[in-house]
């Protein structure tokens, strides 16, 4: 006979302001099988938990229903308390009176009625709860880091330096990411590559890090501690073991006019290329979409000149399977390209460029070797206009958020220009200056006060070209919204920072959630900012939201600490809420096998003692099963069930929902 205890929490006034908690407890005391029912101000507090523990012991309870907040909040708390009182923790269930009732309804009779019904449903469920025991699974102490920008590099180095293996996957031919493209960094104006490249080399040489460049994650299976990842190593067409990196092939390649991605389209590269001089690895790949050999079947110059015989045209994409225990997504961001802002002539006028293009123009390693020359005619600009929020904070263009990094890099750009051309005119159109951060506001003030950058508060309406000049039509809202027209030689748009175009696809491979702008979602915006909702998968850097370098590096180290903490245990405890098969009724149709996303269903042969086969039935591999229950709903002979959500439990819940007749007399 069931002996159920009901514990109704007021949650201060969060529940009791709209639900009559005492009445709920009173009604519950009359439900069949309930032997104890009480309400209390804070059930999750120490005295509240003690109340539960004492009641379990005193009334010899066989089931506990805590009617409080969402089980997503406090289920672990109350299950722990239940276990401490000496009964199996899985005999405790929670009725969600706060998120699903008191907070979403007004104080009226129907709200208290609903609360009592929610309790009744769980009372009926808990009568059918079974004792369950956690499953222990081993942990593969290798981390996968996706993305080789500064975020991925930092996370990989921190994990590797703690003595764990790291596999890094980078989709481009070199690691380095966006930071490698930057000229100088704010607020110190130190050279980006000077501080980044030593880290890149460290990654390449670290004994604990295996690096796959020009590679992408193909698929991810498994779960925390036990992920099975397939990496697609795209064909480089160059044997990197044999290649010495002499560069002869690049020199001789006849196809030299391919817009250079690393230089944001401002320079050209060959069909066989190393993205930039300090690339890691510093060995070329062949871009098959542009190579004459691959397009027309002839040429082969690189092969002819290669002294190391390293060119392998026949190479194919390779699939590498690896086992990892944790995954760090550090795939970074992109900036919005193309004619996103037609009123600014972006995409129409070559001298209207984006921030990344300016970085390349200003960079000593860029296409102009650091001499600021405008793209159209190579002239050195005398007047440059910088436009902040070019697409950010612009719901009409679909991007309502602040891109966070632009205020600072715009100030930096204006400064870099003024340092190169002291007599030039630098104008910044801005709406607000968001320079929160150590030494950040001082940096912007320096641009204004020391470098004489003209900051105009107001947005630009349009830009057009006239006699080789760009006419920028803006407004100064601090001067009675007076119109301002500036003749510029170059216009730099701080276009919005956006998620990578393939981020949605990756999120779906990883089964992590992402927001409407395709940035990956953290588990909790404040308290779990580096983890995702999928256990074992963490985030670093701008794939989560636009971020600058210091923030990215901090988050990467935070993520590394989470990975290392996970790897500090030998075994992982998992919830036992998984499927199980009734051998007696299973007819071996294996429909379940066809729907299981985790390949957790195996075949088991049942034999007589003499060895003759009776039948083959389904068997659940408890290490792989994640407890989705799809097999349960599909099984035609009702031979599979799932712990925690058994048919008996759920049918009891549904039957208790509205079955007033049965309870009418009570």
């Amino acid at each position, binding site marked *: 006979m069931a002996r159920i205890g009901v514990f109704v929490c007021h949650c201060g006034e969060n529940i009791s302001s709209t639900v009559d908690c005492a009445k709920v407890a009173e009604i519950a005391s009359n439900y069949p099988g309930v032997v104890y029912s009480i309400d209390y101000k804070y059930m999750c507090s120490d005295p509240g938990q003690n109340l539960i523990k004492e009641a379990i012991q005193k009334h010899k309870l066989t089931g506990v229903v805590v009617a409080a907040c969402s089980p997503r909040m406090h289920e672990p708390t109350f299950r722990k308390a239940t276990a401490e009182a000496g009964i199996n923790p899985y005999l405790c269930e929670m009725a969600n009176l706060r998120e699903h009732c008191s907070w979403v309804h007004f104080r009226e009779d129907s709200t208290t009625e609903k609360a009592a019904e929610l309790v009744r449903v769980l009372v009926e469920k808990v009568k059918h709860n079974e004792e369950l025991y956690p499953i222990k699974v081993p942990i593969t102490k290798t981390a996968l880091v996706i993305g080789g920008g500064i975020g991925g590099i930092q996370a990989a180095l921190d994990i590797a330096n703690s003595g764990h293996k790291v596999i890094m996957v980078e989709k481009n031919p070199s690691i380095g990411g966006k930071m490698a493209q930057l000229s100088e960094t704010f607020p110190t104006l130190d050279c980006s590559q000077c501080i980044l490249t030593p880290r890149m080399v460290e990654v390449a040489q670290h004994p604990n890090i295996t690096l796959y460049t020009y590679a992408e994650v193909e698929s991810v299976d498994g779960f925390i501690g036990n992920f099975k990842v397939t990496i697609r190593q795209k064909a480089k067409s160059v044997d990197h073991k044999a290649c010495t990196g002499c560069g002869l092939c690049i020199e001789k390649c006849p196809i030299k006019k391919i817009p250079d991605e690393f230089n944001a389209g401002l320079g050209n590269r060959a069909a066989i290329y190393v993205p930039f001089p300090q690339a890691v690895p510093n060995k070329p790949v062949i871009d098959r979409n542009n190579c004459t050999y691959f397009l027309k079947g002839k040429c082969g110059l690189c092969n002819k000149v290669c002294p190391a015989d390293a060119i392998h045209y026949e190479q194919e994409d390779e699939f590498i399977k690896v086992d990892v225990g944790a995954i760090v997504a550090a795939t970074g961001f992109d900036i919005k390209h193309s004619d996103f802002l037609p009123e600014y002539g972006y995409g129409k006028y070559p001298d209207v460029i984006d921030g990344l293009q300016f970085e390349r123009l200003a960079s000593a390693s860029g296409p102009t070797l650091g001499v600021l020359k405008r793209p159209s005619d190579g002239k050195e600009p005398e007047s440059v206009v910088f436009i902040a929020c070019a697409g950010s*904070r612009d719901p*009409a263009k679909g991007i309502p958020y602040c891109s966070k990094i632009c205020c600072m890099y715009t100030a930096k750009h204006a400064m870099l220009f003024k340092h190169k051309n002291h007599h030039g005119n630098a104008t910044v159109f801005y709406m607000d200056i968001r320079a929160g951060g150590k030494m950040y506001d001082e940096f912007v003030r320096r641009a204004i006060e020391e470098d004489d950058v003209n900051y105009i508060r107001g*947005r630009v*309406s349009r830009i057009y070209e006239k006699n080789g000049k760009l006419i920028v039509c803006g407004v100064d809202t601090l001067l009675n919204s007076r119109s301002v027209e500036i003749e510029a030689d170059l216009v730099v748009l701080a276009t919005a920072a956006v998620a990578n175009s393939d981020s949605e696809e990756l999120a779906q491979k990883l089964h992590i959630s992402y927001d409407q702008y395709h940035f990956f979602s953290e588990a909790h915006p404040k308290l779990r900012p580096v983890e995702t909702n999928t256990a074992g998968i963490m985030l670093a850097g701008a794939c989560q939201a636009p971020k600058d370098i210091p923030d990215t590096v901090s988050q990467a180290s935070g993520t590394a600490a989470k990975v290392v903490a996970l790897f500090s245990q030998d075994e992982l405890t998992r919830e036992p809420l998984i499927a199980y098969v009734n051998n007696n009724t299973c007819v071996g149709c294996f429909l379940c096998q066809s729907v299981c996303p985790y390949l957790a269903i195996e075949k088991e042969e049942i034999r007589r003692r003499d060895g003759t086969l009776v039948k083959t039935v389904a068997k659940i591999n408890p290490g792989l099963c994640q407890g989705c229950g799809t097999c349960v709903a599909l099984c035609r002979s009702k031979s599979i069930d799932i712990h925690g959500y058994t048919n008996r439990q759920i049918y009891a819940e549904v039957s208790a929902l509205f079955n007033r007749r049965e309870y009418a007399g009570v």
Partner: protein
Amino acid sequence: METKSKIEPLAQPLKEKILNEINEQVMKCYQCGKCAAGCPLSGEMDYTPNQILRLLQIGDTSCDDEVLRSYGIWLCLTCDTCHSRCPQEVDFPHIMDFLRSESIKRRKVHPKAKEIIAFHRSFLECIEKTGRLHEVGLIASYKLKTFNLLQDVDLAPKMFAKGKLEIFPHRIKGKEAIARIFEKAIKEADND
């Protein structure tokens, strides 16, 4: 108690009326100034579009009053440049239409705008009577209203010569129906 009831009729700020009656949110404006930068007439206005929105956002009686008495609201050409580029998608020309009729209703029209209204009125009177626009009638009526007797006298002879002016108006058959539309629409505006 007495003072309270006196204040109440004035209490509804224009921004609330704008929200209720034409469903435009002035609070969306964050003062980037893109409207003023693109407006062909912001240089001629006493208050630029973003400044008018700012006054409306404040929402007190004196700011609302300044808006309704401004000259800027009468200069708006409804060219929609501001709206088409507004990052917050504020339909400012729509708000301007509302402000103009509100300004007339509350008799707060800027003195310099009286000519513009006179023109609009002459235009509408012409349509009310004949159903269509009749340039000669329109200009004559407008001149009588404003005493700008010499305006456009240079154009008229040339227009006649090119066959572009009719001396007598064309009256449509349904002109009574048009007159009734006017009557009902004006009555409705008065009732608001």
